[in-house]
C-alpha cells in the first residue's frame, strides 16, 4: 500500500498497515462475517496467512510461533464463536506469559449489546485471561491501539492482548496517521533490579553453603540462558528447572539437575529439601513445583528474581525479592559475585545423581520413554519439540535432554490437551529449517486433530509422535494410584491414526516393536510431508518418580 497524504483508508486497511508497522509477517486465522473487510484488505497485503481449521488451532499456532521465535504471535478470527473459540488459546498464552496479539471481529456498534447474530462480549470474557484488551469504538484510535497492544504484549512480563474490532470500524474511511509516542501512565515495566537488593542477594549467596538455582520460564523468555550458565558455573551451584524452564539451562551440563517438582528427578527434589539458599529465577512457585508449600525448601533462605512484582510472596515467603528482567538482574549479580567452591555440596549431589538416576525398566518392549530417548538421539537434541499434556509430556521432560532455549514448547500453566500439534504448526512456520516433533498422546492428539490438514495444506513437515497406549494415561495413572484402579472413562477407543493421517494427505506409520522405532523416525525426519507416527506403547506404564499431590518433595513414589 502506498503512503499518500490525504488519501483515506478503511479501518481494515489501517489495521493491516498497523500490523505491517509492527513487522508482522504471519497471521494464523479463520475468516467469518464480521472480519470480511479485514480479510479483504489482507488479500493484497504482504502478510502470510495460515488458515487453521479451528480458531483454537489458530491461537495455539500463534502461541507456538511466539515461543519458538520470540516474536509476538498474531491470530485473527471473527466475532461470536470465532472469538470464544480463542478463549482456551488465550488463557494458555496468559498462563505461560506468551506474547500474543489476538484480533477478533465484532458486530457493528449499532448492534452491540443486542444479542445480535454471532455477538459475544469477548472483551468481557477475556478480561481475566489477557494482559490487556481493547474494544475499538473509534477508528481514530485503531492505529494507536494496535501499537499499544504489541508494546504491552511483548514488554515486561509478556502476555496476550486482544483487540476487538466492530465491523463498522473496519469499513469506515479515515486518513491513516502513524501513531506517535505511546502514553501509558499505568504501565511501566521495570528492567534493572534494585542495586541494594542485588547486593543483599550477593551477600546471601556468598554466605551460602548449599545454594540451588531454581530456574523457570522467565529465563527462556528474557533470553537469560547464557547469564544463567555463567552464574551457575561461577557459584558451582546446581540448577533445577521447571517444565517451562527446560532448555534455559543445558540439560547435559554437570550442574543440571533436570526438572524439579511432581515429576522431577529425585536429585532435584532432594536438593530443594536440603539447600540452604534457593535462588528462584523467573519462576513462580507453582503447586506442581512446590508440592506442600509448608515443607518446600525448609532450610533455605529464598532469593526471588522476577519481572512481575505480584509473583513475589504470592505462594511462598521470600527473603530477598528482586524485581526486574531476569537477564539484566543476573548480569548485575554476576558483576559483583566472587567465584566460590562448592565441593561438599557438589559431591552430595553427584552421589544422589548416581544413586537415584532418572530411569525406567527397559525390558526391550515398546516403552514410551525409549521412544522419546530415541527421538532425542536421532535429532541430536536439535529439534524443536512441542507436546500435548499428560504422561507423554512428562516423559518428554524427563527423557529428551533439552540443551537450547525455545526448543521445548509445551503448555505448562494451563495444561491444555490439544496444544501440541497446532503449536508445532506455528513453530514450523516460524522455523522452517528446523525439525519439529509434536510428542503426543492418543487422547490429546484428538483434541485438535483437524490441524493436521493445516500442516498438509501449507506443506509444514511436522512430525507427530503419538505415544498410543489406548488410555488417558495420566488420569489412568492417578486412578491406579489413588482410586483403587477404577479406570473410570479413561480407556480410549481410537481411530486408525495411520489411515487418518493418510486421509488428511499426511504420511502415517504404525510402530509396534522396538526394532521399528529408529527406522520409522528416520523416515519421518527425512520426509518432506507431515508424518504421524503411531507408537503402540506399553499400555500401563507410569510416570515416575512422582510426588503425590500436596505432599512434600522428598515423599516421592517410584
Amino acid at each position, binding site marked *: 500500500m502506498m503512503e499518500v497524504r490525504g488519501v483515506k483508508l478503511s479501518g481494515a486497511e489501517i489495521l493491516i498497515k498497523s500490523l505491517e508497522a509492527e513487522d508482522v509477517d504471519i497471521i494464523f486465522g479463520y475468516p467469518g462475517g464480521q472480519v470480511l473487510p479485514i480479510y479483504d484488505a489482507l488479500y493484497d497485503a504482504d502478510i502470510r496467512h495460515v488458515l487453521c481449521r479451528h480458531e483454537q488451532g489458530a491461537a495455539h499456532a500463534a502461541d507456538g510461533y511466539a515461543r519458538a521465535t520470540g516474536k509476538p504471535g498474531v491470530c485473527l478470527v471473527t466475532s461470536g464463536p470465532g472469538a470464544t473459540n480463542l478463549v482456551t488459546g488465550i488463557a494458555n498464552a496468559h498462563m505461560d506469559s506468551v506474547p500474543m496479539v489476538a484480533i477478533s471481529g465484532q458486530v457493528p456498534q449499532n448492534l452491540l449489546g443486542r444479542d445480535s447474530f454471532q455477538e459475544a462480549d469477548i*472483551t*468481557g470474557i477475556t*478480561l*481475566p485471561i489477557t*494482559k*490487556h484488551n481493547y*474494544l475499538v*469504538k473509534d477508528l481514530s484510535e485503531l492505529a494507536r491501539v494496535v*501499537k499499544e497492544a504489541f*508494546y*504491552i504484549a511483548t514488554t515486561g512480563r509478556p502476555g496476550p492482548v486482544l483487540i476487538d474490532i466492530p465491523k463498522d470500524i473496519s469499513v469506515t474511511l479515515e486518513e491513516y496517521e502513524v501513531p*506517535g*509516542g*505511546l*502514553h*501509558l*501512565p*499505568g*504501565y*511501566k515495566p521495570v528492567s534493572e533490579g534494585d542495586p541494594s537488593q542485588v547486593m543483599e542477594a550477593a551477600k546471601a549467596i556468598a554466605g551460602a553453603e548449599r545454594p540451588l538455582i531454581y530456574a523457570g520460564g522467565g529465563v527462556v523468555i528474557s533470553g537469560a540462558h547464557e547469564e544463567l550458565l555463567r552464574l551457575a558455573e561461577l557459584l558451582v551451584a546446581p540448577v533445577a528447572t521447571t517444565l517451562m524452564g527446560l532448555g534455559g539451562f543445558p540439560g547435559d551440563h554437570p550442574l543440571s539437575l533436570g526438572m524439579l517438582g511432581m515429576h522431577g528427578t529425585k536429585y532435584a527434589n532432594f536438593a530443594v529439601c536440603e539447600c540452604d539458599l534457593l535462588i528462584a529465577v523467573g519462576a513462580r512457585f507453582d503447586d506442581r513445583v512446590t508440592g506442600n508449600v509448608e515443607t518446600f525448601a525448609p532450610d533455605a533462605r529464598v532469593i526471588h528474581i522476577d519481572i*512481575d*512484582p*505480584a509473583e*513475589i*510472596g*504470592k505462594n511462598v515467603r521470600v527473603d530477598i525479592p528482586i524485581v526486574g528482567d531476569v537477564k539484566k538482574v543476573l548480569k548485575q549479580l554476576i558483576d559483583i559475585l566472587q567465584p566460590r567452591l562448592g565441593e561438599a555440596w557438589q559431591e552430595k549431589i553427584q552421589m544422589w545423581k548416581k544413586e537415584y538416576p532418572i530411569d525406567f525398566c527397559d525390558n526391550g518392549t515398546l516403552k514410551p520413554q525409549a521412544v522419546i530417548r530415541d527421538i532425542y538421539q536421532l535429532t541430536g537434541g536439535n529439534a524443536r519439540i512441542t507436546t500435548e499434556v499428560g504422561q507423554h509430556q512428562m516423559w518428554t521432560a524427563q527423557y529428551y535432554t533439552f540443551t537450547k532455549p525455545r526448543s521445548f514448547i509445551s503448555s505448562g500453566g494451563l495444561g491444555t490437551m490439544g496444544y501440541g500439534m497446532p503449536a508445532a504448526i506455528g513453530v514450523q512456520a516460524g522455523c522452517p529449517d528446523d525439525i519439529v516433533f509434536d510428542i503426543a498422546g492418543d487422547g490429546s492428539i484428538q483434541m485438535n486433530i483437524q490441524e493436521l490438514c493445516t500442516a498438509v495444506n501449507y506443506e509444514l513437515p511436522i512430525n507427530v509422535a503419538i505415544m498410543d497406549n489406548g488410555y488417558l494415561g495420566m488420569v489412568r495413572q492417578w486412578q491406579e494410584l489413588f482410586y483403587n484402579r477404577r479406570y473410570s472413562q479413561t480407556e480410549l477407543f481410537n481411530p486408525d491414526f495411520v489411515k487418518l493421517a493418510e486421509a488428511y494427505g499426511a504420511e502415517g506409520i504404525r510402530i509396534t516393536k522396538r526394532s521399528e522405532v529408529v527406522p520409522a523416525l528416520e523416515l519421518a525426519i527425512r520426509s518432506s510431508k507431515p508424518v504421524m507416527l503411531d507408537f503402540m506403547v506399553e499400555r500401563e506404564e507410569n510416570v515416575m518418580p512422582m510426588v503425590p499431590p500436596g505432599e512434600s518433595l522428598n515423599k516421592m513414589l517410584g
Partner: protein
Amino acid sequence: MTHTLTVLVENTPGVLARVAGLFSRRGFNIDSLAVGRSEDPGVSRMTIVVEGDDQILEQVTKQLHKLVDVIKITDVSRDDFVDRELVMIKVKTETSTRAEIMQLVDIFRARIVDVGPKTLTIEVTGYESKINAFEKSLRPFGIMEMVRTGKVAMLRGFKSTTIDESQKKEDVY
C-alpha cells in the same frame, strides 16, 4: 484490618469491571467501592475499602498495579486522612413520631431532603460510626430504604494522591 485505598484509573470503558473482577477472582473482599471523575477529566478516582492483613493488601496492590488502566494506588489509611460517606435513609413517620425524628436529624446534623405524607427522607454524611449511630437511632421508627455511597477518602494537609508530573508527561517507545 481494613485499609482504604485511593486508586487512580484511566477513565476508560470497562475499567470498573476490570477492578471489580480482579477482586472477585483473586478472592479479595471489598467492603466498599466508590468511583467518580477526578480533578483530571481523563482520570477517575476510586476509593476502595478492603478487609485483610498486610500480606493480602500487598497482593491486592500488586495485582491492581498489573492492570494497564490503573495509574496510581495509595493506601491513605497508612497516613492521616479523612473519610466520608453519604447515606440516604427513608424512614416511616406518624404524626406522633415526626417531631422526635426531626430532633434526631438536628442532633446528627443530618438534612431532610424529602417529606412525604408518611415518610421523611434524610441525608447524612460523616464517618462510619456516626452514620451507624444515626441508623440505629432511626431503626425503631421503621427504615423503609437505605442507600450508601461507599466511602470516599482524602489525605489530610498538603499531601495528595494526585498523579506526579512525571507520570503525566512520560511517553514510552
